[in-house]
């Protein structure tokens, strides 16, 4: 078998997260793919429809993918029920550099679906106390109903600082309202020993990075995960170029000192 042929996996659970987002728990039907790590992604094949890149959103035993229905393939994936099969290739791309963060304070900033690829980082902190210096998780969502993993958050809060903000509160929301960067003022940032991991829509990434750099965090201690069109995941289709980078090989997780000048060029 080669890296272009998907390996069959079975859906063992399909959990709705929000109105348009589902978490799929998967197990190999026969052969398993090599182990994934946080930040890396799989190419996921919906039978007869197509294949799309999806980040791993949990790695505790079973592989979990959190998929938002935005089109044909993701729409089909969100319709899957336990027992259904998908094809999987991977793991592809770079992961979050967590070893470098072992002695650091880790700051996770996620916007919208950007929390999915960062959830395994939080899980590591919970499952292996002492893994990181400290961990603060800042989450921005459009509305309370669009907040991912809401049921899990109380458990996270037992050992991790979690701050959530929404753009559009509903009448029951008692939490913070505003952009995710406003949360930076609410946490104790020890800039000399913080590493930041940022994921979300590109404009949110740039805005968050600017706010962190303005506070004095060096760009080399900030990592982000970027999205581009990807057809193969193996560096052969040419779609995921961002200037000199092939994001399926050099990314999706890259250091901000590399990302910043590239994101500054329009339509690169």
């Amino acid at each position: 078998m080669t890296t272009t042929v998907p390996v069959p996996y079975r859906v063992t659970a399909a959990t709705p997260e929000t109105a348009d987002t589902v978490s799929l728990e998967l197990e190999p039907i026969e052969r398993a793919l090599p182990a994934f790590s946080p930040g890396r992604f799989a190419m996921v094949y919906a039978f007869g429809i197509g294949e799309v890149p999806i980040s791993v959103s949990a790695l505790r035993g079973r592989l979990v993918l959190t998929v938002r229905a935005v089109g044909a393939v993701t729409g089909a994936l969100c319709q899957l029920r336990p027992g259904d099969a998908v094809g999987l290739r991977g793991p592809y791309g770079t992961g979050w550099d967590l070893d470098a963060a072992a002695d650091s304070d880790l700051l996770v900033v996620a916007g919208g679906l950007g929390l999915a690829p960062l959830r395994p980082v939080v899980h590591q902190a919970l499952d292996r106390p002492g893994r990181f210096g400290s961990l603060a998780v800042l989450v921005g969502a459009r509305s309370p109903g669009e907040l991912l993993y809401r049921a899990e958050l109380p458990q996270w809060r037992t050992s991790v600082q979690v701050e959530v903000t929404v753009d559009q509160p509903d009448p029951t929301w008692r939490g913070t309202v505003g952009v995710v960067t406003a949360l930076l003022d609410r946490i104790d940032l020890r800039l000399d020993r913080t590493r930041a991991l940022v994921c979300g829509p590109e404009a949110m990434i740039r805005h968050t990075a600017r706010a962190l750099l303005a506070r004095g965090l060096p760009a080399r201690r900030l990592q982000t995960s970027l999205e581009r069109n990807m057809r193969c995941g193996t560096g052969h289709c040419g779609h995921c170029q961002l200037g000199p980078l092939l994001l399926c090989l050099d990314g999706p997780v890259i250091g901000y000192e590399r990302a910043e000048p590239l994101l500054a060029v329009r339509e690169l």
Partner: protein
Amino acid sequence: MSTTTTPAAEGAVIGKDGLATLVDLLRARGFTVVGPTVRDGAIVLAELESADQLPYGWGVELEAGHYRLREREDGAAFAHAAGPQSWKTFLHPARVRQWRAERSDGQLVIEEDDTPPPRFAFLGVRPCDLRAIAVQDRVLTGGRHRDPVYQGRRSGAFLVAVECTEPGATCFCASMGTGPAAGPGYDLALTELVDADGHRFWIRSGSPEGADILAALPTSAASEAVCETARQAVASAADRMGRTMPDTDLRRLMAGTLDAPRWDDVASRCLTCGNCTMVCPTCYCTTTEDVTDLTGDHAERWRVWDVCFDLDFSQLHGGPVRPSARSRYRQWLTHKLGTWYDQFGSSGCVGCGRCIVWCPVAIDITEEAAALHDWADRPDGEP
């Protein structure tokens, strides 16, 4: 035997009959022989059943946006520059089925398409195209992952290079360092000579398999004079290139001119038709097509060439990353001449000139690079 100080006689000489034997021999050994032949007013690459199908007596007239066959009196077989196709048509086909999938009661079986590819022998690989194959080797099999389709077709391929003695008006391999002499990577290399001493080919081998084939051909010894004449013919071709790339660090030039007004200028001419990518021997981008039969239980994955000039190419949900023609032409050119180095360690352009010839509006890669170079070199303070 050759030494590094005085190039002396090496290789051998074959005549037209030797070339015919070469084709027969390769076919007898199970190769699908592909080479240039005249079809529909162009010199195309197609399977050859015999050397008679080679374009003896045909040359080409090339200009930006212009291609025409021209009869030659000398009867040369390889006195033509690049045509509309390149070897990627065979090594990296425009459409391949990668795998099939079947679904029944929650079971999913996916099987790689393992139809064994033909074993190709390419006759008449120009030095620029020999380099283009090496470039695609690196792109498709030189990295962390290998493309099995390309690898399957490439690993058994036998390459007969033919050096250039008649460059076209759109050729610039000399300034890209890719020709007109054949670089490494061939199994056999030929240099065609047509003069008072007759029509003949100086032939050398570049691999054990090449040497083996060469030993089976009707050859005569290569005199020092023949070798010298052939080398001279190739060397003088270097001075007759119709185009040149600006002599500068192109990678730096591309990285430093992303804001140049020239991109607007070229965008106002470019039709974003993608012809340049189709004819380019190194362009490799693909997309995927998934199809099912009527029952919906059998599916196939096809991989097809894709074009960075298409809007869809950079589609994210919400829209394309490169909506303007400016950004798409810029992507193509900066990738070819610049970021290819970052990604694959070499230039993505080998100077074959095809993109110039087949551009419907005569956009010329060397002219665009020169304009960017002029802009980068402009006196301080000018916009």
